């Protein structure tokens, strides 16, 4: 509720939770300024009193990239022909970070905000939204490093780059779908947080992040691409580095699965959000 609505005769109805609870997306729109306040508060608070401050955002992916280059690139030689391993790997790490970051920050958003939630009302879906925006922000910052690397390796993207948002969107939608379902359950069973961490670690290896998908034998490749994130990683590499594109129908399948999961996840989240105060 805000000042603009004071003059209208709007009612708030409070009912016992039964059946489908409406998403109330228009309410989130009303609270949009709050989303930015939370984002600003998180970012500012996190990087105060740190020597390197926000530089830490991409130190993680860079260190990973160096390690993977050494082990998987040089020693095991799992990289593709024709593309320098560091670039190959870092591109994937970035988009993987977008997905995993979205999933993890969404999943823990409710639990982390429990003290706030127990004292004041705002639409709880605001918290996952802040999580996504934080991940996107991290992605954009690291993208600067990627751009620098691309210039260094003289690997400039062709026209395919216009499809980049499609893959990024799929990554975010998947991350959100996973995160929303997890968020509702984490409040009841805290160990699910660790389960998610391990799941994401394993999932990364099921995607062509450290190795090229050409390593997967032909007959298994269709099965391999059922994993929507494999499509995302290869798709982003196609857009930026000109490597082989993943089959379009698999990308379509990815959206077909992820979007309903997301919508159902959002409804499930709404169903549980008010009773979280009683459990957490």
């Amino acid at each position, binding site marked *: *509720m*805000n*000042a603009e*609505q*004071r003059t209208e*005769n*709007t*009612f*708030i*109805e*409070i*009912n*016992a*939770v039964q059946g489908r609870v409406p998403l109330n997306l228009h309410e989130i729109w009303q*609270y949009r*300024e*709050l989303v930015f*306040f939370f984002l600003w*508060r998180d970012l*500012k*608070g996190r990087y*105060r*009193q740190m020597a390197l401050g926000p530089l830490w955002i991409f130190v993680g992916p860079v260190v990973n990239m160096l390690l993977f280059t050494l082990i998987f690139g040089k020693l095991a030689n799992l990289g593709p022909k024709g593309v320098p391993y560091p670039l190959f790997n870092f591109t994937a790490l970035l988009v993987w970070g977008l997905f995993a970051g979205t999933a993890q920050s969404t999943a823990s958003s409710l639990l982390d905000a429990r003290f*706030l*939630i*127990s*004292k*004041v*009302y*705002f639409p709880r879906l605001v918290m996952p939204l802040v999580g996504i925006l934080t991940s996107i922000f991290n992605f954009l910052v690291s993208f600067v490093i990627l751009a620098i690397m691309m210039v260094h390796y003289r690997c400039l993207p062709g026209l395919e780059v216009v499809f980049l948002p499609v893959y990024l969107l799929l990554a975010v939608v998947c991350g959100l779908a996973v995160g929303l379902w997890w968020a509702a359950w984490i409040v*009841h*069973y805290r160990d699910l947080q660790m389960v998610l961490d391990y799941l994401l670690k394993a999932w990364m290896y099921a995607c062509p992040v450290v190795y090229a998908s050409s390593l997967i034998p032909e007959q298994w490749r269709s099965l391999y691409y059922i994993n929507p994130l494999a499509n995302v990683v290869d798709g982003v590499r196609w857009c930026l580095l000109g490597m082989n594109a993943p089959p379009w129908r698999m990308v379509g399948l990815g959206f077909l699965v992820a979007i309903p999961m997301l919508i159902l996840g959002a409804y499930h989240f709404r169903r549980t959000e*008010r*009773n979280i*105060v*009683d459990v957490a």
Partner: protein
Amino acid sequence: MSSPVITVDNLGKSYRIGRLQQKPQTMHDAMKRMVAAPFAYLADRLRDPTESEILWALRNVSFEVQQGEVLGIIGRNGAGKSTLLKILSRITDPTEGKARIRGRVNSLLEVGTGFHPELSGRENIFMNAAIYGLRRSEIEKKFDEIVAFAEMEKFIDTPVKRYSSGMYTRLAFGVAAHLEPDILLVDEVLAVGDAEFRKKSLNKMQGVAREGRTVFLVSHNMDAVLSLCNRALLLSGGRLIADAEPQDVVGKYLEVGGAGAADVMASSQAKPGQKLKLTHIRVVNGEGQCRAELDKRSGLIIEIEFDVLAPGRGYVVNCQLHSLQQGCVFTTSSWDTEVEHHAARLWSVGRYRASVKLPADILRGGEYYVKVTSAIPAVEILDIMEEELRFTIMDTMGPLGQHREGRQGVIVPVLPWSILPDEA
């Protein structure tokens, strides 16, 4: 009269509480229990709760609130007051029933919600106000007022983690005081902070009430409820048992709370380590009889029995008299009589009886309640007696009675006057 701003219809909330553990009877049981222990949480969550595990914090509560009412909610701890407030604030869901609210709502369940220690006072004001639903432009307009109210002009740009607790509370309350909701829900926020802050809070509440906003106040402070509210609700065991004028409801609260008689005993046991336990209070009239109704023309004596459980010095018993109609009349202390000997007196373990005599012909007719506490002044509180003594002073009119009752004043003493011609 327009439609009500708050309508509550058969609201109920149940919680699931843990099952009472029984000691394992046999070795077999103990082993089973130990093996199953890691999964006990999951197993408990998966099955439906049994009767004994369901606690109804609120049941069948229905009422309506009109625009501009200042409503006080009172009741013992655990009666369901905070639960009701949480449901109306949309922080938790009801289990049954429904509620309808018209207008902009702000809930003050604590001060400083959302404050981040690393951010400065200025940043936190924006943060806090945004959480309460204010737009950035609105916050900017009120910013200077808030800072002035909190008296924080000099420190507004330092990180909040450097603030003293007083500064923190002032800032937080500064934001809370400048929200302008149609309906304000307040939960004993008045209870935190020092005396001056409480006074400021109370004044602000009065200001809000005078502006015609609807206020919903949950409080243990009977004086606040009596002075601020024009209507009160009494909750007990999750049910609404009274809905009337504050005076009547507070009266009923004291009655229901078990402080019914002119002779009350403490119901709780002494805690381990407690040095002094108040056990019994009683009021006695001029003839030495214990009565709930007293004639104001005779003096009355309040008798307090207590047990000293650990020897010590400086123990003091305090007695506070409240009038249901007029608030706190006075506070008196055993310290007042024996000041010189007070510090030196060594209390030995044993049972004691204190009595304090009120002079005759001083109290106005009406209902009173007495609260007794014990402390070592400025050092520690020894005991607070939950049960309150209650008695009525009857409106007995002596020859000058009618004239005196009409006078203003919390008390109506008969004082000696002397008038003599002035020798020039």
